């Protein structure tokens, strides 16, 4: 990762509301954060990651003290404090909306808005110090025109999509994804066979852990893969080249020699076209050869198909003493596969696990698990394959 945001890189922009969006930073394009403001991409290029930036009038940004980490949740430890805020506010809805509009235009700062709100809140003076600070933090989250640019690491991407659009990644949570990488023993030089029927979260994670000598062979549905998430990862070209893909429909394809002849009056375009098709043919032949050669170091699967049928088909391509790992959001599809693996003489160490993750608020006198959590992070089935012919 780079220290600072570069032209053309994807960045996760976290806003005061804790919502985030992924943007591709281009110097000439404006980055829109809705009620938190907007700024030119050029302002962000060269800025170090991980700091808090405030958006100034005119779309410049400047480093800002970080918002305190202490407001993960607004539950009151002391329920005596719960008061109806809306009734104690002297400003009308319209007056507050007008303030917001002026803030968006940059004519008034968040601090000024918050001061106005507290001055006009009858209950504010009666609040405890704890409660006052909480009120101000809550308003800051609403009105501060701040953001934090975060790197598109695998962890950050997985957490972002798990929260914003879990269906996109088949509901895989970062802890579950991380366990797959461990169980599959992915390392720099590993040759990994993968199936990822979501948008490349699993394939991307695999790519992040391999380097020179390693490769990921991914078999996908449809004619072209849709590993959308990989492009957010800011991979160098050699990183992307470690991925080879093949449609399921080509898995049993019998290669025939490349026989396309050029017509006598072939144009330059015809020549280039033939060369492109020849390269694609050679690449397919090479991919099929490698696949059929088997001896992969890991088999990693997240599929909408019956996982047992996928395993039965791909396990022969896995090397001896190597691991297979299957993810699903639901346990039922894996239970059948688990039963098949357990009953087969070809596997050891067959395990079906449910992952569990919990986040906490840690604050002086206010430490507790977050009041909301994800319902589930999915299930992982894993086993070690024995050497064939035992």
């Amino acid at each position, binding site marked *: 990762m780079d220290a600072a945001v570069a032209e053309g890189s994807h960045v996760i922009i976290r806003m005061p509301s804790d919502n985030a969006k992924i943007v591709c930073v281009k110097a000439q394009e404006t980055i829109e954060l809705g009620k938190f403001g907007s700024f030119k991409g050029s302002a962000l290029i060269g800025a170090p990651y991980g700091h808090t930036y405030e958006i100034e009038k005119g779309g410049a940004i400047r480093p800002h003290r970080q918002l305190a980490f202490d407001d993960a949740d607004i*539950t*009151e*430890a*002391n*329920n*005596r404090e*719960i008061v109806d805020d809306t009734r104690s506010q002297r400003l009308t809805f319209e007056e507050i909306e007008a303030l917001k509009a002026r803030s968006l235009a940059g004519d008034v700062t968040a601090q000024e808005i918050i001061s106005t709100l507290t001055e006009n809140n009858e209950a504010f003076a009666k609040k405890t110090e704890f409660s006052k600070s909480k009120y101000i933090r809550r308003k800051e989250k609403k009105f501060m025109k701040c953001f934090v640019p975060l790197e598109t690491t695998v962890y950050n991407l997985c957490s972002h999509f798990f929260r914003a659009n*879990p269906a996109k990644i088949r*509901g895989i949570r970062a802890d579950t994804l991380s366990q797959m990488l461990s169980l599959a023993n992915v390392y720099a030089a590993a040759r990994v066979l993968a199936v990822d029927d979501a948008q490349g979260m699993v394939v991307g994670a695999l790519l992040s852990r391999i380097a020179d000598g390693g490769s990921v062979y991914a078999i996908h*549905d449809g004619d072209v893969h849709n590993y959308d998430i990989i492009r957010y990862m800011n991979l160098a070209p050699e990183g992307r080249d470690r991925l080879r893909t093949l449609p*399921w*429909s080509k*898995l*049993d394809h019998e290669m025939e020699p490349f026989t396309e002849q050029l017509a006598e009056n072939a144009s330059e375009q015809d020549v280039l076209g033939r060369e492109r098709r020849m390269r694609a043919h050679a690449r397919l032949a090479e991919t099929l050869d490698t696949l059929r050669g088997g001896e992969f170091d890991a088999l990693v699967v997240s*599929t*909408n*198909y*019956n996982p047992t*049928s*996928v395993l039965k*088909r791909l396990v022969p391509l896995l090397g001896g003493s190597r691991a297979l790992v299957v993810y699903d*959001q*639901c*346990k*039922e*599809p894996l239970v059948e596969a688990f039963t098949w693996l357990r009953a087969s003489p070809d596997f050891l160490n067959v395990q079906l696990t449910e992952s569990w993750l*919990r*986040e906490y608020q840690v604050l002086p*006198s*206010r*430490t*507790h*698990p*977050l*009041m*909301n*959590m*994800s*319902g*589930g992070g999915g299930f992982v089935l894993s086993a070690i394959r024995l050497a064939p012919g035992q």
Partner: protein
Amino acid sequence: MFHEYRSVVGDGDQAVLYCTPESMYPITVAAGKVFNNKYGSFHHDDMIGVRYGSKVVSHDGRGFVYVLHPTPALWTQIVPHRTQILYLPDISFISLYLDLRPGKVVIESGTGSGSFSHSIARTVAPNGHLYTFEYHEQRAATAQREFVEHKLTDVVTIEHRDVLANGFGKSGIADAVFLDLPAPWDAVAAAKEALRSTTIGRICSFSPCIEQVQRTVLALDEHGFSEIRMFECLAKDHEVRTVPLPDIAEAIGGNKVSFRPAKGDRRKRRRDEEPAAPGASDDPGEGGVLVSKPVNAARGHTSYLTFAILAPGPRSP
């Protein structure tokens, strides 16, 4: 109503109108009154005399609601939140741990929104009693009004009182004490005073933050409580869908497989609005497979539950 079932809706009954799981409304049935919502106008006269659990059709015949018998569990789903409330898993676990049963005497503080109070009253009725204390005057008054409406005053006594400052004003009468207070450690001495000295007394303190637990445990230990244990208790909703889960041979053979939203999901959405027609298929759906998982968003924490007992014997202060 909350501690005795009736079969038929009567004038003056408390009832719950059920539209969807997310929209239920408590009403007091009164001849001549009308309940209006987006599903239509529902005349109380159409409810009186029907069996609980019946469908009631709106005045224009287009919408309907179900008229349900009130229970503490339903009340927890619809109680107006004047405070953080206790939910069913905590209510249930605390009640069992404190050994609440018909005839028991219980002290609760604070009353809060009364979610737990209704359940305690139901469980200890008809011969037991709940004394519940609320610091906040307006909340105490509102809860008192609800207890009257819900015909619970024979089982529940509510008092507006600062128990941290003044104790419960009760001595040696309670089988169990439940504390939901910001500084429960300051109420431990009062709880000890209120518990019977002749049988095992049980206490539960309900606090969201671990620091509150740490102080409460020390106070319980100092005051001679024993068997101090601390728990967290949650329940996770699961949802069920039907997925096609085709064999990979389909894809290898070049067949196009549809992974459209499964039937179960669509049925569920419709179901929230209106029950499926009689005779609806209970087939899991077109060769699909039933799968289930926790719903995406779950409650991650309510509060820590600290329990202890006070063994019988003379009370040394």
